[in-house]
């Protein structure tokens, strides 16, 4: 249970760095408030021309993209989460942990769990903020179903963020400087973000990009989030979305596989790490 000790310490730092705390919460809110609201009026005007079958459930763009913003924020926070390790390493703090009797992989597990917690906090705040500015999540759901949906959503977010936290931990352990990590993160986030269904449907992608998006964990996260927050059958920006239970299980399986692989990679890195 030594990872709880690492977790505890990292959470103290999270709460203590007020600036970091607020900026990490403000950024997604700004995305929603500006990009979301601005794009919504555009997309909704364009797509209002596309006929939606009578009786079908349709959501406006703001709701559609809110799921994408949740996913994007989770991706960003998680890829950054490993930076704690980089600082610990560079400031020599990791030596205390490495010389102590705790299993070394517990360091990475503790940091990753605290990163996951941060993602949960962010996601919940974005959802509340979104509902306030008119995002139509959980349309007509009774309270029990809302609770169940939130849990499902957090499950997806949790597995996804752990995967990227393990990746981030691996990179941090191998990097010398925060700038290096920053570079890798930038390099990773943009393609991940744009070759996904976060902001627009992938149905209209060229086949090559569609193939790539199938390999993109972000796509599966967004799918999971939309399923739990909007429903299994809806129209958005003129596209029909319908998810079966199998689709959702596959998406979850894909994320779990990704996370397992990342865990194995991080585990190897930690076992062999030499920190002095």
């Amino acid at each position, binding site marked *: 249970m030594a990872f709880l000790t690492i977790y505890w*310490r990292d959470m103290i730092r999270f709460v203590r760095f007020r600036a970091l705390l607020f900026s990490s919460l403000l950024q997604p809110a700004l995305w929603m408030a500006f990009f979301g609201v601005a794009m919504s009026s555009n997309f909704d005007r364009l797509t209002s021309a596309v006929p939606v079958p009578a009786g079908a459930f349709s959501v406006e763009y703001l709701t559609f993209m809110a799921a994408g913003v949740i996913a994007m924020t989770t991706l960003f926070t998680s890829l950054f989460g490993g930076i704690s390790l980089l600082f610990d390493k560079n400031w020599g*703090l990791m*030596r205390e942990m*490495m010389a*102590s009797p705790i299993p070394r992989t517990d360091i990475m597990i503790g940091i990753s769990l605290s990163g996951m917690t941060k993602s949960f906090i962010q996601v919940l705040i974005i959802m509340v903020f979104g509902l306030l500015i008119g995002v139509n999540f959980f349309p007509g759901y009774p309270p029990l179903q809302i609770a169940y949906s939130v849990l499902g959503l957090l499950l997806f977010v949790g597995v996804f963020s752990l995967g990227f936290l393990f990746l981030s931990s691996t990179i941090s352990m191998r990097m010398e400087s925060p700038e290096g990590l920053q570079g890798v993160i930038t390099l990773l986030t943009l393609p991940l973000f744009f070759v996904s269904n976060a902001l627009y449907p992938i149905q209209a992608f060229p086949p090559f990009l569609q193939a790539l998006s199938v390999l993109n964990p972000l796509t599966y996260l967004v799918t999971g989030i939309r399923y739990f927050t909007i429903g299994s059958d809806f129209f958005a920006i003129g596209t029909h979305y319908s998810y079966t239970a199998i689709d959702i299980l596959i998406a979850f399986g894909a994320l779990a596989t990704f996370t397992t692989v990342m865990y194995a990679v991080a585990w190897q890195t930690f076992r062999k790490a*030499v920190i*002095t």
Partner: protein
Amino acid sequence: MGGDIIEVENLTHAFDGFQAVKGISFSVREGEIFSFLGPNGAGKSTTINVLITLLPLQSGRVRIAGYDVAREPARVRESIGVVFQNEVLDRDLTVRETMEFHGRLYGIPRDERRAKIEEMLGIVKLTGKRDERTKNLSGGMKRRLEIARGLMTQPQVLFLDEPTIGLDPQTRLKMWDYIEQVNEAGTTIFLTTHYMDEADTLSDRISIIDHGEIVTTGTPDSLKNALGEDVIYLETTDNRAAEKALGSLKSVRNTMASPRGLVVTITEDGSRCLPAVIDRVRGEGIAIRSVNLKKPSMDDVFVHYTGRELRDTGEAGRGGS
């Protein structure tokens, strides 16, 4: 005092082809305070890092508290405590949290941990700073906190890498006190230093290390006595006659007249030769105005074995690793 709690045989460590530690062997007995005395870059920290399992064992054999560092690193880590040469403090944790974190890492149960933290903070006089963030502590307070932290787990062996670097003379003396207390309570201490007086005062035994090699090992007294260069300063009514009289004494290596008196270099333990020297001078009817016996210092020992003085190292501060 029991058997050997640290056993090192033929330890070698290289960084990219550069031999930082060149096949050293030594052992530390249970209950001892053992010092590595050596200049910057001698390989002290490198040796410690291998012993505490932060660096992999490249060649040789190292056992700590009966466990092999290569085969049972987890067991070794359970048996030891470390105070690193460089500061290892999270700037944004408070003093209490710093201790709490460490106690948890070592799995000390909650109530015991709380009590231990209070006790240790009391010993290093940091109780009043309990809720201060470590970044607001003075350099000496930080070092005291690190030492308190190293001691709180009551390890079998405590490694102290230049424990009193950057401390004022008063605090240094107190640190020595703590170190001795802890040692009396049963913890074996392995410390590195480039302060002669520190090695001299604290250690049961010292190894002088230079360029990755141990050049000599012994108790502080035996090291100093082995030089056989005790010096007697004599002031007499007739220095020239005294010099002549002493020339035939077997234990006298050399005599030299200086404006303030006679400098007599002795080949044996000076305190044992002194009566004979006095007798001989008096026997010639020469009156002695004053006598002064000077034993070699650790500085002399160091210069003798390494061929250089340990200058500048005091200002090197907490560099290296």
